[in-house]
């Protein structure tokens, strides 16, 4: 099997590769989302704590 045959997928290349690309996008989004979420939560905790100390002063 040559590389171009592999990409061609017997005429179904568009459908097969679109499916796999969408899968990759969805999986990556699932990995990135909690990474950003963690950053957001930690930032939220520190800003609220800073506001609380400012109010005490």
């Amino acid at each position: 099997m040559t590389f171009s045959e592999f990409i061609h997928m017997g005429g179904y290349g568009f459908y097969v590769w679109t499916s796999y690309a969408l899968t990759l996008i969805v999986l990556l989004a699932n990995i990135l989302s909690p990474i950003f979420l963690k950053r957001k939560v930690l930032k939220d905790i520190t800003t609220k704590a800073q506001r609380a100390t400012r109010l005490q002063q």
Partner: protein
Amino acid sequence: MASPKYFYSIAGTLIPWIGSACLLLTLAGLYYGLLVAPADYQQGDSYRIMFVHVPAAWMSLFIYMVMAVAGAIGLIWRIKLAEVIAISSAPIGASFTFLALITGSIWGKPMWGTWWVWDARLTSELILLFLYLGIIALYNAIEDKRTAARATSILAIVGVVNIPIIHYSVEWWNTLHQGPTVTKFDAPSIDISMLIPLLLMAGAFKLFYAFVLLMRARCEVLNRERNTQWVKKLAGIS
């Protein structure tokens, strides 16, 4: 044992191991699925969509059941960690449901000649997506997270009625969607060269769920335990 602090640290240790195992299984599954397995005698190479479509669809049901069971445990025994697992599962399950629908649609176009039909399997899977989205919306709409968890758990448990409908839809109603080929009681009617990559990918998707579930659950734990000493220390205050 199920204390949030302990969970946070043990999950942190497990995540890279589960992620690596998932990556290995994925690579093996892709190798056997795209390079080793022969073309199908009826569907040509288009059937290779199955290796992402079927595991995604299985996960959409599996994650829903995990969410409903964890939700029920949270409701009955008031275990915080069960609530965290339930609510962290929702967006992951929604994304797998979306993936099952979209890859099915892309597979349906060349095989059935249409992107979409309103038949039992496709419609019940679409309802599953709406259930997931409803659960996420309900959780975010309620300020107090423990009340929110209770409300979403009840919705999740009620929605379980949809799960057998999805599973048996291809047997109960006439549909374009093909019947089960793996979970039949007699021997699976799928060739071993195609079964191996399918099972590898199914395993990889399960590990992926565990991988991202732990990451999400850790965020949820941080958010809920924000007033405790260990989270404050972790966030760099006090």
